[in-house]
C-alpha cells in the first residue's frame, strides 16, 4: 500500500442518520408484527366466540330455572322472613346484649386458642430435643445403664400447661355455643324462611352468578388477555388433558397422550350444546364417552386415542382433521384453509369412522356394545369372507366362508358354474361371492379369451375332482310348494336366507348369513335340494346350517317350493377359443416357476384334457378360490392375501397409489378405493397377465365399502398399555367368547341379545310371536335345563310357527354360550337351593294365582282356547325345572323392564306396596308365595333326558 493519507468519512453521515431512522422504524414494526403474530391464534377466537355462546345458553338455562321457581311461594317466604325480622326488632335490646357477650367470648376464645396452639408447638420442640439428648446420652453410656438427663420435668410441666389451656378452650367454646343457641331462639323464624328461600332460588342464583362472571369485563378481556401481558393469568388458555395410561407411540418411545382438543371444543363434555355448530357441540354420547361418569371419561381416555389426529396441536389443519365428504373438503378449505396434514402419521378418522379405534383396547372382540358401526363392519368382514384370504388376528380358525365344492358335480352343472363365476351378482344380486374375472384390469376385449380359458379350466378342475355324493333318499316324492313356502316364511329360514332380489346392503350381513335363495330352483336339482334341507350335514359336514327338525313331508314341501324359485341364467361366454390358447396360458403359468424349455416339454407330455385340468389347478391357486371353498387338492394351501392384522397401523407411504391421482392420497381413501375396485391400482400400468392384481370384486356399495374400511382401519398393532385395556377376568373372557359365538353362528339374526340383532323379529307381525330376547336368559333359566334345551330343543310355545333349530354344536360351544348368558346377567357364581314351603299348594299363593288369573294366558297342560295366540304364555308346569326361582320374583315385579313389549301385566305397580290385601299388603311376601306355588307344578314338557 502507498503512503497514508488523511482520515476521512466513508459515508454521508446525514444519509446514515436517515437509514438508521428508517431501519429503527422497520425493527419496531417487525417487533409489533412478531408480537401480534404470536398473539393472534385461531383458538383464542373460538374461546371468545364460546363465551358469547355460553352467556346465551346460560341465560336460557336461567330463564328456564326461573320459570320453575314457584314465585308465589317465594313471595310468601319473603313476606314470612320480613315479618319475622319485624318481630325480631321487638327483642332488639336483648339480642344486642347477647351479641355483645358473644363478641367478648369470641375474643377470649381466639386468645385462648392461640395460646393453646403455641404451647403445643413449643412442647413438641422441647419433647423432641429432650428425647434426642436422652438417646445420645444412652448410647454414649454403653447402652445398658440409665443415665439421668436434665429437662424431663420441664417437658412434663409444659404438657400439663398445654392440657390446662385446652380445658380453657373447651370451656369458652361451650360458652359461645350457649350464647349462639340463645340468640338462635330469637332468630329461628328468620333463618328458616331464608333457608327455604335459598333452596328455592339457589339454581337460578347460581346461574345468575355464572352469567355475571361471563360478562365482558375490562380486566379479563383487555388486561389479562392483552398481548405481552397474557403470560400472567389469561382467561384464554390452552386446555389439555394428559392421560397417563393412554399413550402416543412416537416410534422410539411411548409418551402419555396430551390432548388439547378442548381448547376449541369447549362444550364437548357439557350438556346443553347439542344443537350448536362445531366446534361447540356436545359429544353425541356422553353416557359412553367423555362424560366424567362414563367408562371413557375424558380424564382417563382423552380424545385422540379414539378419534386419532394430533392431540397436541391447536390449529385446525395441524390437528389433522379429516373430512368425511367432498362437500366438507370444500367447506373446510374455505373456512379454515384446511389441507391434508403431513405432520402426523395418523390423521383423524372422519366422522362416522371413529369406532375403528375401539379395537385398540377392546381387541379380539367382534362385538363391542354401543359400537354399532364397527359391529356391523365386523359382521360384514366375516360374511364377505375377507379373513379367508387375508389372515387377521381375531378371525383365525373360522370355517371357510364359501360352500364346500368337493362334491360340486352332484349339485350343479358346468354351464351354471361357469356363468356363475363369470359374474355371480348377475345371478344373485345379494350374494357375497365376488367376481374374479372381467374386472377393471381384465375386462378389455384382449382379455376375454384368457378369461374364458381360465374360467373353463377352473370349472373343469372342480368337476373332475368332485367326489360322489350319495343321496340319503335317492328318489324323494314331490311335496306341496305352497305349503313349502308357508314353512320357509314361518319357521325361521328367512332369518339367514333371503328369497327375492333384495339388495345385499339393505339386508345386512345377518340376513345374508346363508346362501340367497334367489334362483335356487334353476341352480340345483329337486333331489339335491331335498337331500340338503333334510340334513345339511349329510352333504357338507361342517356347514353352519342348523337342523330345523322338519319331517320328510315338510322337507318335500320346502324342496318343492325352492324348486319353483327359478331364474337367473347369468352371463354366458361371448368368445370361443381353441386348444392352442389353453396351452399358451398354461405355458405362462409354468414359465413363472420353471425354465421355458422345461415348461414346454412338460406341457407336451400332457393330453389336452390334462392341460386344461393343470391350468385349472394353477388358476385356482393363483386366484385363491380354495381360501373360501373346500376344493380337493388344496386342503393345506395357505391363503393368498396380505395379512391385515395391523393394516390400520401401516403408514401412508406403504400404500401404492400407482397412477391413481383422482382420489385423495390418504390411507382410508386407498382402502376404500381398493374395496370398490380391487384392481384399480393397475390402472395405466403395463402388466403381464400374471403380474396383475387379483383381488376379486365384491361390488361393494358406498356404505359397505365405508364400513369395511372402518373394519380394516381397526386392525392395529398393540400400542396402548395394559392399564388402558379392558381388564381381563373369567367373566370378561366368557362374554367375549359368547359374543363371538352367537354372532358366528348367527343366533343374533333371530334373538336380540344385548340390544343387538333380532332381524328376524321384524319379519314377524306380532313381537310376542317372535323369537325371544335373550339378554336376561342367564338370570332366567337354569343352566342345566338350558344345556338340555340346546342339545334337543323342545316346544315351549306350541302356538309359535318359528322354531329353535338344532345346531349340533360341541359341548365346548354350548358351555361358552351358557357362560356368556350367565356373565351378562351377572349370575356367574354359587348354586342355590330353593326350598318351597310344604303347604303352599293350598295357601295364599294359590289364592293369588287364582285372583290374578294367571291361567288366562299361561298354559297349564291345556292351551286356553279363548285367547288370541299373541297373548298365550308358556306352560307353567315347566317353571320348576326351567326357571331360576329368584328370577321369577324379578319377573313378577317388573316384566316390562326385563322384556320390553311383553304382554305379561305388571301387577305390582306400587311395588314395594301392594294393591292386594294378603300378607298385610306386603308385595314381596305375596310374590314369593305365588312363586312357591308355581314351583309345585310338574309334568310339563322337558328337554332333559328321562323326564
Amino acid at each position, binding site marked *: 500500500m502507498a503512503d497514508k493519507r488523511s*482520515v476521512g468519512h466513508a459515508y454521508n453521515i446525514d444519509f446514515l442518520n436517515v437509514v438508521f431512522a428508517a431501519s429503527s422504524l422497520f*425493527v419496531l414494526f417487525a417487533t409489533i*408484527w412478531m408480537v401480534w403474530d404470536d398473539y393472534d391464534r385461531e383458538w383464542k377466537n373460538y374461546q371468545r366466540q364460546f363465551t358469547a355462546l355460553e352467556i346465551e345458553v346460560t341465560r336460557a338455562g336461567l330463564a328456564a330455572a326461573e320459570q320453575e321457581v314457584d314465585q308465589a311461594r317465594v313471595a310468601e317466604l319473603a313476606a314470612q322472613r320480613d315479618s319475622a325480622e319485624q318481630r325480631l326488632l321487638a327483642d332488639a335490646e336483648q339480642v344486642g346484649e347477647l351479641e355483645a357477650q358473644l363478641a367478648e367470648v369470641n375474643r377470649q376464645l381466639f386468645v385462648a386458642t392461640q395460646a393453646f396452639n403455641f404451647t403445643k408447638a413449643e412442647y413438641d420442640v422441647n419433647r423432641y430435643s429432650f428425647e434426642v439428648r436422652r438417646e445420645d446420652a444412652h448410647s454414649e453410656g454403653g447402652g445398658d445403664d440409665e443415665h439421668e438427663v436434665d429437662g424431663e420435668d420441664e417437658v412434663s410441666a409444659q404438657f400439663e400447661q398445654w392440657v390446662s389451656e385446652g380445658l380453657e378452650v373447651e370451656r369458652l367454646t361451650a360458652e359461645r355455643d350457649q350464647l349462639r343457641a340463645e340468640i338462635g331462639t330469637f332468630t329461628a323464624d328468620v333463618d328458616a324462611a331464608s333457608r327455604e328461600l335459598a333452596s328455592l332460588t339457589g339454581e337460578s342464583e347460581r346461574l345468575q352468578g355464572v352469567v355475571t362472571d361471563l360478562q365482558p369485563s375490562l380486566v379479563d378481556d383487555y388486561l389479562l388477555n392483552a398481548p405481552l401481558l397474557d403470560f400472567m393469568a389469561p382467561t384464554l388458555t390452552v386446555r389439555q388433558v394428559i392421560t397417563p395410561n393412554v399413550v402416543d407411540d412416537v416410534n422410539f418411545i411411548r409418551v402419555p397422550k396430551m390432548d388439547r382438543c378442548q381448547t376449541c371444543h369447549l362444550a364437548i363434555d357439557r350438556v346443553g350444546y347439542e344443537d350448536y355448530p362445531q366446534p361447540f357441540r356436545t359429544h353425541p354420547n356422553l353416557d359412553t364417552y367423555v362424560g366424567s361418569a362414563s367408562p371413557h371419561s375424558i380424564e382417563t381416555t382423552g380424545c385422540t386415542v379414539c378419534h386419532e389426529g394430533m392431540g397436541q396441536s391447536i390449529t385446525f389443519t395441524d390437528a389433522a382433521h379429516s373430512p368425511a365428504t367432498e362437500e366438507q373438503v370444500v367447506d373446510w378449505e374455505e373456512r379454515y384453509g384446511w389441507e391434508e396434514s403431513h405432520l402426523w402419521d395418523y390423521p383423524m378418522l372422519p366422522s362416522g369412522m371413529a369406532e375403528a379405534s375401539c379395537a385398540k383396547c377392546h381387541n379380539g372382540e367382534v362385538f363391542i356394545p354401543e359400537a354399532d358401526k364397527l359391529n356391523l363392519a365386523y359382521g360384514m368382514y366375516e360374511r364377505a369372507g375377507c379373513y379367508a384370504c387375508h389372515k387377521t388376528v381375531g378371525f383365525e380358525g373360522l370355517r371357510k366362508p364359501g360352500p364346500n365344492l368337493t362334491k360340486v358335480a352332484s349339485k350343479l352343472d358346468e354351464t351354471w358354474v361357469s356363468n356363475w363365476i363369470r359374474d355371480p351378482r348377475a345371478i344373485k344380486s345379494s350374494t357375497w361371492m365376488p367376481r374374479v374375472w372381467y374386472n377393471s384390469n381384465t375386462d378389455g376385449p384382449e382379455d376375454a379369451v384368457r378369461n374364458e380359458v381360465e374360467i373353463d379350466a377352473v370349472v373343469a378342475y372342480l368337476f373332475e375332482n368332485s367326489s360322489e355324493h350319495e343321496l340319503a333318499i335317492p328318489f324323494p316324492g314331490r311335496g306341496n310348494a305352497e305349503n313349502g313356502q308357508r314353512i320357509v316364511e314361518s319357521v325361521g329360514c328367512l332369518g339367514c336366507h333371503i328369497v327375492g332380489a333384495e339388495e345385499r346392503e339393505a339386508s345386512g350381513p345377518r340376513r345374508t348369513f346363508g346362501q340367497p335363495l334367489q334362483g335356487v330352483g334353476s341352480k340345483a336339482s329337486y333331489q339335491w335340494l331335498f337331500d340338503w334341507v333334510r340334513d345339511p350335514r349329510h352333504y357338507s359336514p361342517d356347514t353352519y346350517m342348523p337342523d330345523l327338525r322338519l319331517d320328510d313331508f315338510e322337507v318335500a314341501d320346502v324342496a318343492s317350493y325352492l324348486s319353483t324359485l327359478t331364474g337367473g341364467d347369468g352371463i354366458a361366454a361371448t368368445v370361443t377359443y381353441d386348444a392352442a390358447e389353453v396351452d399358451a396360458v398354461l405355458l405362462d403359468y409354468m414359465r413363472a416357476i420353471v425354465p421355458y424349455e422345461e415348461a414346454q416339454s412338460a406341457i407336451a407330455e400332457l393330453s389336452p384334457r390334462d392341460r386344461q385340468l393343470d391350468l385349472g389347478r394353477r388358476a385356482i391357486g393363483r386366484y385363491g378360490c380354495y381360501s373360501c371353498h373346500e376344493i380337493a387338492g388344496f386342503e393345506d394351501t395357505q391363503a393368498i392375501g396380505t395379512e391385515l392384522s395391523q393394516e390400520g397401523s401401516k403408514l401412508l407411504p406403504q400404500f401404492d397409489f400407482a397412477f391413481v391421482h383422482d382420489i385423495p392420497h390418504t390411507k382410508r381413501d386407498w382402502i376404500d378405493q381398493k374395496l370398490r375396485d380391487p384392481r384399480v391400482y393397475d390402472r395405466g400400468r403395463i402388466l403381464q397377465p400374471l403380474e396383475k392384481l387379483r383381488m376379486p370384486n365384491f361390488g361393494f356399495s358406498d356404505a359397505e365399502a365405508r364400513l369395511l374400511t372402518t373394519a380394516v382401519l381397526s386392525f392395529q398393532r398393540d400400542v396402548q398399555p395394559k392399564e388402558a385395556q379392558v381388564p381381563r377376568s373369567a367373566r370378561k373372557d366368557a362374554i367375549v367368547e359368547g359374543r363371538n359365538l352367537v354372532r358366528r353362528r348367527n343366533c343374533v339374526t333371530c334373538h336380540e341379545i344385548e340390544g343387538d340383532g333380532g332381524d328376524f323379529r321384524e319379519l314377524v307381525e306380532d313381537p310376542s310371536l317372535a323369537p325371544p330376547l335373550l339378554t336376561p336368559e342367564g338370570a332366567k333359566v337354569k343352566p342345566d335345563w338350558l344345556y338340555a334345551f340346546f342339545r334337543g330343543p323342545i316346544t315351549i310355545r306350541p302356538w309359535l310357527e318359528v322354531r329353535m333349530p338344532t345346531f349340533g354344536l360341541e359341548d365346548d360351544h354350548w358351555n361358552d354360550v351358557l357362560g356368556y348368558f350367565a356373565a351378562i346377567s351377572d349370575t356367574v357364581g354359587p348354586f342355590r337351593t330353593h326350598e318351597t314351603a310344604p303347604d303352599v299348594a293350598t295357601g295364599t299363593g294359590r289364592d293369588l294365582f287364582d285372583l290374578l288369573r294367571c291361567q288366562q294366558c299361561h298354559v297349564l297342560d291345556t292351551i286356553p282356547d279363548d285367547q288370541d295366540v299373541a297373548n298365550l304364555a308358556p306352560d307353567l308346569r315347566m317353571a320348576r325345572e326351567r326357571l331360576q326361582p329368584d328370577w321369577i320374583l324379578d319377573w313378577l315385579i317388573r316384566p316390562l323392564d326385563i322384556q320390553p313389549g311383553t304382554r305379561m301385566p305388571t301387577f305390582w305397580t306400587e311395588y314395594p306396596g301392594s294393591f292386594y290385601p294378603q300378607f298385610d299388603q306386603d308385595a314381596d311376601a305375596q310374590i314369593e308365595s305365588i312363586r312357591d306355588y308355581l314351583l309345585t307344578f310338574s309334568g310339563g314338557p322337558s328337554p332333559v333326558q328321562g323326564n
Partner: protein
Amino acid sequence: MDALKSFIDLFADPRLFFLTTVVALVLIVWKRETFASDRWGWGLMGFLVVFFGFGLFDENFKLIIGKPDNVPIVALIFLLLFFTWFSMREAVRNDRRLSAGEPPIEKDEEDRVWTWPDLVYTELIAMVLCTVILIVWSIGLEAPLEQPANNANTPNPSKAPWYFLGLQEMLVYFDPWLAGVVLPSLIIVGLMAIPYIDNNPKGNGYYTFNERRAEVTIFLFGFVVLWSSLIILGTFLRGPNWNFFGPFEYWDIHKLEALTNVQLSEYIWVRWLGMALPGNWLVREIFGIILTIVYIGVLPVALAKKGLTGYYEKLGPTRYYVTVLLFLSMMSLPVKMLTRWLFNLKYVVSIPEFFFNI
C-alpha cells in the same frame, strides 16, 4: 408454455446441468468484458426474477422452491450471481486501469475512516437490519418440522443439510470413504494451505483478473461449479430415490432410472481382452490401480517436466506438488462424473473383498 417447461426440465439432467455451468463459467471468464457490464449484470438478475416469477405459477415448481428449507437456497442463487458479477466487474475495471498504467481504484480511495461514526454506526445499522430480516423470516416461513421420526419410514429423498448437498452429490460418484472422508478433509486442508502455497502479492487489496487468471478461474470452478451449483442441484433437482427431476416435474416416487454401471476391470478384461474376470483381485484390478497411481503419482511429475514447468520453477518443488495434488483431487470429481456419464463407469478400482472402491 408447457413446451418451455419441458425444455427447462430437460436441463435438469445432471449432464446438461453440469455442462451448462461449465460453459457459463468459460463464457464468464472469456467474455468478462461483456459480462462485467451493468446491462449484463442487472439483465441476468432480471432474468432470474422473471424465471422464478414465471415458475411460481407452476404447482410443482412452487412446491419445491417454496419449502421453508429451500427458500434460502433461492436467495443463494441470486447472491451467487450478484457477487460473481460484481467481483468480475471490479476486476475488469481495475484491469483496464492497470493496463493504462493507472493504479487500481482501491488505491485512489482514502485508506482510513473514523471508527465513530463510520464503522460503529454502519455496524449498528447492519445489526438492526439483520434483526428485521430474521424476524420477518421467522414469521413468514414456518419451521420445517415433520412428523415424528420413524425408522420404518425414513424420508425420501433423505437430504443432508443444504451446505452438505455438494458432498452428498459426490457420494453418487465415489465410495463413502472418499466422498465422505478423504475429499472433505482435503477441502479443509487445501483451504488452510492456500496462504502458504500462494505467495503471489498481486491482487492483494484490490480486484483483478488479468494478474491472477489461473487462480481466479480455478477458484470459480471449484466454488461456483463444483460446490455451489451442486448444492443448488441437490436442493432443487434431486427428488425421491435420489432421481433427477426437472423444476416443473412432479416428484413421482415410482420414477425409475436405468442403472447399468460397469467396472473398469470389466471393461478391460471382458470387453477389450475378451477374457473372463481373473479370480485374484490384484490381477483383476491391476489396470485400475496402475491408472490411479499414474493419476496421483506420475502425472504431477510429468506435468512438472512439461506443461507446468513455469509453475514448477515459480513455486518450487514442495509448493508445486502440494498444489498439483490438491488440484488433481479436485479434478477427480469432474473426471469421475464424465467417465460415469460417458462410459457408465462405476469404479476405477473395485475391490469388494476389502470394501475398497475408487
